[in-house]
């Protein structure tokens, strides 16, 4: 199995290398079309790469403890699904898997109906892929074995490190850290990786456009779907990480401005900006340069994010510890940056586009404001991340910024962004229709002011929370009002709604973001908690609830861990409404425990309980209970965002123009 995995991986990289060399020959002959032999070689490379990934997974499931990676992430008691997904549980495996996602993306781009790769873009895609392949082969090889030397020492290495050494296979491994043995581990990393990887194709295509000196009209149509899908997966990946953090205490809450979290958010800002300015280029033929900058920048920031995660430069929840690969990754980031800047400078004049804003209230202007804020957020977050690195170089001691920096600098920008999203449906392509639309806004405005006043008396006195509540209420009500207005003739409405699905998809996404903002207000402004030590029969009050401790149970059935659980009865209005079982899992082999919260989840919010401490002998437990109102709107909002983007993606690029005309017609009819 070892040979199958290693050889198929090496052969896969070799096939890709040959494809790359053939492409370079073609390019020397000034032929930019990919020959069928190049495509075949690349496909073979993907097939072999897939085989090697499956082999490593099989070795994990079959517990081949002669492979040092398997020893580090698998043990005999882990469930099979976690044994498989442990492939992205450690440094070597996850880099190997990342390389494979790049190959997958390349494979897709070569075989979809509208193949978008040409010689130049293939060159760049393959180079990126081979870079990570080389790291896996030469620096962090997941197929590295454990060797027993004659001296009795144990060493790691792909091949025998000394004469007389023999492969050493133990009977069990260390296994994944208990904090990683969770559903989040199964889905969060691959979705995020795929989202990251999909941006490679637009990047390569943009580079190819710049090299060939094409003006970039076609770029939009060719890459839009790629960008949309990449964006959807990136969004889903980030939110799934947040959900996992919320679901397991150990990760520090749904969002902590951890360097790796922040690093994955930065390309989200730039790609979100890109989705907006792409439309502007389509409608008004402006922002062409800006779009090129954003496509290139997004991929560079993704590589930077990988650098932050892998290099261990910053203390982070996700960091993989010290590593030898920070230098090559830094070089890759720098190279991509220099190449991009050089190409842009070279073709800058060529990319000239018109520049006219008809008014400060039209949709063009709204898009412009959106992108200004997104760029500002990019700068703020990048600055916050890079600050300790820069001060470290210049002053010797690292001076960093704590999370209050992000709270203070980024939150006002987020609120501005939410406000723009709320009024976005009011903006139209011409000043006249803006006036027309303004009338529809009156009722939502009055209602949301009333709601805010009610919230002031009933919910919160925090002006920050009230502002966000107002913005969210106004935005959602406005979209509702405009949708209702469109529904006056129900027979037509459905058809028109479908014809304009790109716009309604965007509304879904915006509504999703506003709902996430609502969830954040719930967590940051409206949550309350209490902790107390109880013996069976004791009750503890929290808001309109009472938590009663019923009993403490211990269970030994799971081979992985021992479970200690507190049974709690949740009382409301004099009766038991739910039973909750917060507990701890004790992993004896590691001397580590993991707290497992239990919660009652409803649309109103979560009632979240944690077992902090217990004594089986004395029979008491210490429980922390929190009331987290509105939190589930975060996850609902995220689902809405993904659906909205999918809806928008279902409209072909060519038809987007029609949407614009339709809309104008419709506005004329109304006025």
């Amino acid at each position: 199995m070892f040979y199958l995995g290693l050889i198929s991986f090496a052969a896969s990289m070799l096939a890709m290398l040959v494809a790359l060399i053939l492409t370079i020959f073609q390019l020397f002959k000034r032929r930019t079309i990919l020959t069928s032999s190049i495509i075949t070689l690349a496909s073979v490379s993907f097939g072999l790469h897939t085989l090697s990934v499956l082999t490593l997974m099989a070795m994990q499931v079959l517990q081949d403890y002669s492979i040092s990676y398997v020893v580090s992430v698998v043990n005999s008691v882990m469930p099979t699904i976690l044994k498989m997904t442990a492939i992205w549980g450690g440094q070597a495996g996850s880099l190997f898997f990342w390389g494979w996602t790049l190959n997958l993306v390349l494979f897709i781009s070569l075989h979809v109906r509208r193949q978008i790769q040409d010689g130049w873009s293939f060159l760049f895609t393959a180079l990126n892929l081979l870079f990570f392949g080389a790291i896996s082969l030469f620096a962090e090889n997941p197929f590295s074995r454990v060797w027993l030397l004659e001296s009795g020492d144990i060493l790691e290495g792909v091949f025998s490190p000394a004469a007389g050494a023999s492969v050493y296979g133990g009977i069990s491994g260390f296994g994944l850290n208990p904090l990683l043995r969770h559903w989040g581990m199964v889905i969060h990393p691959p979705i995020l990786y795929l989202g990251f990887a999909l941006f490679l194709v637009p990047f390569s295509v943009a580079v190819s456009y710049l090299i060939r000196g094409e003006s970039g009209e076609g770029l939009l149509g060719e890459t839009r779907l790629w960008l949309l899908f990449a964006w959807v997966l990136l969004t889903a990946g980030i939110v799934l990480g947040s959900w996992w953090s919320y679901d397991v205490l150990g990760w520090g809450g749904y969002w902590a401005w951890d360097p790796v979290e922040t690093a994955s958010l930065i390309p989200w800002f730039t790609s979100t900006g890109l989705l907006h300015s792409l439309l502007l280029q389509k409608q008004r033929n402006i922002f062409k340069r800006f779009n090129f900058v954003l496509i290139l920048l997004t991929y560079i920031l993704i590589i930077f994010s990988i650098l932050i995660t892998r290099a261990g430069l910053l203390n982070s929840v996700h960091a993989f510890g010290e590593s030898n690969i920070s230098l090559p990754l830094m070089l890759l980031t720098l190279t991509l940056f220099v190449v991009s800047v050089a190409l842009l400078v070279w073709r800058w004049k060529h990319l000239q586009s018109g520049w006219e804003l008809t008014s400060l209230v039209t949709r063009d202007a709204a898009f412009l404001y959106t992108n200004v804020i997104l760029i500002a957020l990019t700068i703020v977050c990048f600055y916050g991340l890079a600050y300790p690195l820069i001060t470290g170089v210049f002053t010797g001691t690292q001076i960093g910024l704590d999370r209050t920096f992000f709270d203070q600098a980024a939150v006002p920008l987020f609120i501005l962004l939410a406000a723009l999203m709320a009024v976005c449906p009011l903006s139209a392509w011409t000043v006249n229709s803006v006036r027309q639309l303004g009338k529809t806004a009156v009722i939502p405005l009055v209602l949301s002011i009333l709601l805010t006043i009610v919230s002031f008396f009933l919910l919160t006195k925090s002006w920050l929370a009230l502002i966000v509540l107002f913005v969210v209420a106004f935005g959602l009500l406005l979209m509702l009002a405009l949708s209702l207005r469109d529904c006056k003739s129900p027979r037509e409405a459905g058809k028109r709604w479908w014809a304009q699905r790109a716009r309604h998809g965007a509304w879904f996404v915006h509504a999703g973001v506003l709902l996430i903002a609502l969830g954040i207000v719930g967590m940051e402004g409206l949550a309350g908690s209490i902790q107390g030590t109880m013996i069976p029969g004791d009750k503890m009050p929290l808001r309109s609830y009472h938590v009663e401790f019923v009993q403490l149970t211990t269970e030994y059935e799971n081979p992985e861990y021992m479970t200690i659980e507190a049974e709690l009865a949740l009382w409301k209005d004099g009766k038991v409404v739910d039973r909750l079982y917060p507990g701890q899992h004790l992993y004896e082999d590691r001397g580590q425990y993991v707290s497992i919260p239990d919660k009652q989840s409803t649309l109103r919010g979560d009632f979240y309980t944690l077992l902090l401490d217990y004594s089986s002998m004395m029979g008491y437990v210490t429980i922390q209970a929190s009331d987290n109102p509105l939190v589930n709107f975060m996850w609902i909002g995220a689902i809405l965002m993904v659906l909205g983007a999918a809806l928008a993606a279902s409209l072909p690029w060519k038809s987007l123009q029609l949407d614009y005309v339709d809309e104008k017609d419709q506005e004329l009819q109304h006025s």
Partner: protein
Amino acid sequence: MKKTNRKTIIAVLVIAVALTALLIATTRSSTQYFLTVSELQSGETDMTGRNVRMSGVVLGETIVYDAKTLDLTFEVAQIPGDHKVIKEMGGMAVVLEEAAADPTLPRITIHYNGVKPDLLKHEAQAIVSGSLDANGIFQAKELLLKCPSKYESALPNQAGN
């Protein structure tokens, strides 16, 4: 064309100035010094009350936790802050093991109020943010833990306020 150009430049300038002002203002209020235990205690500059982030190795026997009040105190011992030094000494796992066993190294008491992190145990690396009080006790507002072992990459645990 010229006129729009000038307008654009003014708009960009205004935004740039506003953003810079925002960054400067927030940087000042959230600056944090990354120090080691001995740097904090050396007294070269009095760091009392300043916002500090510090890393040290947890001494398991010193952990005292009151689950009723969520008061958590423990001691950490000095470990080097420089990646290169740590590498030369044989990696983080070795450094942590040796530092925890060496009674001659400077130590400091940490106080933290909050849920005890799952990974808080002997030889874990604690990264604390907070400030030194007048009694020489480090009042942590944030507590982050990492437990590197020989094979497994560092995996941390975080609890924040």
